[in-house]
């Protein structure tokens, strides 16, 4: 069972006393500060297969493996386009030598030729 923490500091505008367990006040309380803890990548991980190291090193900086594993079965050409988009459009610092390795891993484990 995962527990996700939330801490809310409440500073109320309304000053009327409200007893515990009463209905929420009619006037919305002004929440001054909200802090949450996000649960990271949950249980999502890349498949353990040849090339996973380079994929983890390059892809996980920006997104969880769910961005890959929830896609439909993409072709090698589509995975190539995705890797190119990450590098060119989103500025991911993927080395030229790594890009084909990433495409091969994705095509083998999450795609089709």
């Amino acid at each position, binding site marked *: 069972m995962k527990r996700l923490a939330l801490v809310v500091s409440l*500073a109320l505008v309304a000053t009327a006393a409200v007893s515990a367990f009463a209905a929420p006040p009619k006037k919305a309380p002004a929440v*001054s500060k909200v802090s949450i803890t996000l649960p990271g990548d949950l249980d999502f991980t890349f498949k353990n297969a040849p090339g996973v190291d380079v994929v983890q090193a390059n892809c996980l900086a920006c997104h969880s493996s769910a961005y890959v594993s929830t896609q439909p079965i993409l072709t090698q050409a589509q995975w190539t386009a995705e890797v190119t988009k990450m590098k060119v459009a989103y500025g991911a610092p993927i080395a030229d030598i790594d890009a084909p390795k990433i495409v091969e891993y994705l095509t083998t484990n999450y795609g089709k030729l």
Partner: protein
Amino acid sequence: MTDRRTFLASAASSLAALSVPNTARAADSTVTLPFENGRRPVVAYPQKRPMIVLTPRPVQLETPFSVFDKSVFTPNDEFFVRWHLSGVPTSVDGDAHRIFVMGTVGRRLTLSVDDLRHTFEPVEIAAVNQCSGNSRGFFDPRVAGGQWTNGAMGNARWKGVRLRDILDRAGLSAGTKQIRFAGLDTAPFKETPLFVKALDVDIARGDDVIVAYEMNGRPLPLLNGFPARLIVPGWYSTYWMKMLSRIEAIDHVEDNFWMKTAYRIPDTPNNSVAPTDKGYATIPINRMRVRSFVTNIADGAHLVAGPQLVRGIAFDGGSGIAKVDYSLDGGTTWLPTTLGPDYGKYSFRQWSGPFRPRTGIPYKIACRATAVDGATQTSTPTWMPAGYQRNIIETYAVTAG
């Protein structure tokens, strides 16, 4: 276990800043959506009830579709979540937050949420917020992108101030072409384009575009953009900037990645193309297409025979819903429905019609909304490589017994 309502009530009673751990917990469950690679965990994120996790980082949460049958307004703690960049702020001070109004203006403004609440005329509007890619998982052929079913949408009462009033206080310079917006989220690399969106000035100055600080009478959940977000009724939610921190008037057309490359639709009839088409012009996505759904009966349901209702929701890009028809035979014959209360032209509009299924007969329920502007739905899907704007007539195969 303390539920959220009790938590809020007891927190409110103390009249002092306090820290209380949320007892929300993840449901130990998964759901399998009806397409390839559709298995998803169902998890209660902070300030949220259990929702379908599309991706945990950046966080994207889909509303379970049964939620849309409970109320015409989508609860804040079940409202979908979609962030683009991994730098989602997890701690936001609503008192210290400032919205900077700058650019081609007579005078710059620095506004707190308190300034919004107390120095502008408040307005409240019911409006549907829908992701451009809602229902992308149903595209055929499939396309890359966030694989949502139909739950990347929600309807809320948004309270705030008119963007036009803010712009008028700043005084737009002649020659202002667009207003661009940024929030507090950050990019992982300096080469990553920051999430910035822009609206033409005439759209930005529209009557109903607001900077909202309340959602259904409450502060926004952090993941929905606390403490303030832009509301662009009738338009897809890519423009509804969360954690709004910058409003900038510019004398040109914004050409960053998020406007020039992403969130564009083919400039073709029905914005539709064939998968093999290349070289067509594109335009920024804008107003939502008319849609309708059945909310009380799921596809594949086995019902108890006898009299009952089919009910659902409809909405469009801001002209309002004129009528919703429904069919029990997959669209061969259509019947009128009764529309529910009218919460305004941007809101979900509920509808219902009688249904008396008999044992052993297969039914194919369908619904078709027609907007005030005359637009309606068809049974032929449109297609584009980005997977936006799905609005096909939905059908639901059911039996009874």
